[in-house]
């Protein structure tokens, strides 16, 4: 196999099917590393990584930090709440200041779509997008794909339903792009107010009935209702949403074939899925978290590999 075709991971839309395959195959070997008594390899010992989080995150930041440390990279953390951003510094100035400290890679979460792309054009470091507004969240899509492949054996022909708040979800967009590239069939399901109109142009089925969606799919990816991004009311009430789009054990027990239930976290228990579903054998939510570290190790390893000594 050859190297990644890209120097940054800005979004799934820039990756080829071969790139995705390479990342998932490499992640498989890193997952083995994570199950050793000593879960650390020295590969990135001469790489320094800055984690820049301009937006709140717990699990993604922890997952990246753990992946970096398992690869022996040096890590500096930065969060907007405690920084000069509050004092009016621009993004490029902030990052250039950090790069002056000889940082090789930047993992960034930012509320503005395209922030990673903008940064990659202005600074000499490999950029990993850890979520940019409602645009993309490529590592989440990669870890979801890895988890699906682990369960079903292949992404080719897998039927995946993405359910819930599609319009505010960067996870949904990255997932759709990735799954389509890998030959899966994709359906999005949610209230008409939370499914963007352009969705069918991406070659996905659009459904507004949860029952129809779960009868069709092999995997249901239940997205979180993002109250914090909803500036207006998109549905009458939480109770109404739960009644129409909340996944329950009754749904799963009535199905002819078992389906896999995923959730990118954090879960609103009792809203998009019930506690019983989240803790049931159908759910692979904690596998997704474990796989997240392995997938992020693979991404960092493959991007670092492209920074040959002498060129970086």
């Amino acid at each position: 196999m050859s190297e990644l075709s890209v120097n940054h991971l800005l979004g799934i839309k820039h990756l080829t099917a071969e790139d995705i395959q390479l990342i998932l195959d490499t992640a498989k070997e890193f997952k083995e590393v994570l199950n050793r008594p000593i879960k650390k390899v020295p590969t990135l010992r001469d790489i320094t990584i800055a984690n820049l989080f301009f937006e709140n995150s717990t699990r993604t930041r922890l997952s990246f930090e753990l992946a970096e440390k398992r690869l022996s990279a040096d890590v500096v953390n930065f969060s907007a709440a405690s920084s000069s951003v509050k004092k009016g510094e621009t993004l490029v100035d902030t990052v250039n200041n950090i790069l002056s400290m000889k940082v090789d890679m930047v993992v960034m979460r930012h509320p503005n779509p395209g922030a990673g792309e903008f940064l990659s054009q202005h600074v000499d470091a490999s950029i990993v997008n850890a979520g940019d507004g409602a645009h993309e969240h490529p590592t989440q899509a990669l870890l979801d794909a890895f988890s699906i492949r682990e369960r079903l054996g292949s992404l080719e022909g897998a039927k995946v339903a993405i359910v819930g708040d599609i319009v505010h979800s960067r996870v949904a967009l990255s997932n759709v792009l990735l799954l389509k590239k890998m030959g899966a069939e994709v359906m999005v399901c949610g209230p008409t107010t939370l499914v963007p109109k352009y969705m069918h142009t991406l070659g996905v089925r659009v459904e507004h009935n949860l029952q129809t969606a779960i009868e069709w799919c092999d995997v249901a990816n239940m997205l979180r209702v993002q109250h914090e991004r909803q500036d207006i009311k998109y549905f009458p009430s939480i109770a109404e949403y739960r009644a129409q789009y909340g996944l329950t054990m009754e749904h799963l027990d009535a199905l002819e074939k078992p389906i896999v239930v995923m959730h990118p976290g954090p879960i609103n228990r009792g809203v998009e899925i019930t506690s019983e579903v989240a803790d049931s054998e159908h759910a692979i939510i904690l596998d997704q978290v474990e796989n997240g570290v392995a997938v992020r190790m693979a991404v960092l390893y493959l991007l670092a590999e492209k920074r040959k000594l002498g060129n970086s």
Partner: protein
Amino acid sequence: MSKREIIDSRELNIALNRLCCKLIENHGDFSNSILIGLQPRGGQVLSRLVKLLEAEYGVGSIRTGLLDITFYRDDFRRRPGHLQPNKTKIEHLVEDQKVVFIDDVLYTGRSVRAAMDAILSYGRPSKMELLTLIDRRFSRDLPIQPDYKGRQVDSIASQRVEVLWEEVDGRDAVLLTEPAS
């Protein structure tokens, strides 16, 4: 580019048998030993040795494993192209066990250095040894020598030594490849 056969099937089998006998002398019934093939080419030597040990020498239940050293290499970011990791399969505890690394060709010794580093992630073996089918003499970059060697080969840096296996390549042989001048 020209290829020359330097060891044929009969000679290769004599070497493998001799390696088996030497392993038995030092490891007895292998109850405290684990044989670890170094990926990607050591696994083939390992499976052939285990087959011989079981069929010809009556040694049963030998514990084995496969170790990939990609993440421990010292040339990461220093060579062109991509380093694709291979599968690692270590299902036995190596703590306090005698570990024998098995590879097809010993050249600079850098892979073996990486393997010694890698195996420590699984525990602290009581002893580490190295078995190589082919020892390319006078080519070491590091102070590493094999404990067991099948054959010694004199070669220069521009040449390649390649081991063929019947199961994979259709015949057993060792080839010396000369680059086109």
